[in-house]
């Protein structure tokens, strides 16, 4: 599939960074506000799908390979389950939140229920892992669909 017109490409180029930053915000604030790894990942993947539809299949195919996407997806799953087993190792239980109430990243305890990004222990890290997996997985679905329909045309 060839790309669309210049108007569509320009609007997609302007909209893509805004959509991506909003999706990363939803992932990073997953333990405070509605949303989380899956929702933010779906938003980022929809921004990538916007680029893929606007610029055409061959342009996207030259930038990213499906093999790299499945590697990123496996990396997200490994990070999630690795954090869970790290809880078994350091906290004594599967999924134990060993980072909370320490001086490390995301280790603080919220005062009087006030929203603070530096809380939650391992939950934000698990949200990052799920977000990576969902971004790679959903964009791989769109990319496979694009490549399959492109082959059909030739």
């Amino acid at each position: 599939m060839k790309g669309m017109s210049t108007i569509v490409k320009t609007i997609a180029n302007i909209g893509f960074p805004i959509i991506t930053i909003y999706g990363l915000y939803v992932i990073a604030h997953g333990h405070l506000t509605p949303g989380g790894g899956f929702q933010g990942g779906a938003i980022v993947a929809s921004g990538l799908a916007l680029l893929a539809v606007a610029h055409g299949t061959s342009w996207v195919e030259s930038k990213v390979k499906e093999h790299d996407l499945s590697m990123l997806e496996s990396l997200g799953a490994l990070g999630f389950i690795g954090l869970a087993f790290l809880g078994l190792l350091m906290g004594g239980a599967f999924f134990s939140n060993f980072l909370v109430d320490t001086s490390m990243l995301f280790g603080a305890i919220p005062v009087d229920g006030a929203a603070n990004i530096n809380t939650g222990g391992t939950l934000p890290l698990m949200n990052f892992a799920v977000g990576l997996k969902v971004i790679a997985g959903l964009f791989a679905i769109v990319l496979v669909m694009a490549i399959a329909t492109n082959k059909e045309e030739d």
Partner: protein
Amino acid sequence: MILLDAIHIILPLLMIVSALIAVYLKDLVAATIALASMSLLLSLEFYILQAPDVAIAEAGVGAALTTAILILAIKATKRTEEEEE
């Protein structure tokens, strides 16, 4: 809240209308946009029902990703639906 009750009745009716439009349209890209608007109305209904998590997921997957996949599929085939005999 009489206004909220009215919205709870109006939104599903609009969803049914846009789904029927998606069925009856012969231009498949326009039908895809009608499906996306149905998904968007559904996510608004989820938000009113105090489920913002589900609303965000529905807006991302239903309105954006499904539309992209359907448009990619339509690009590889014909844009208009053929008349049945």
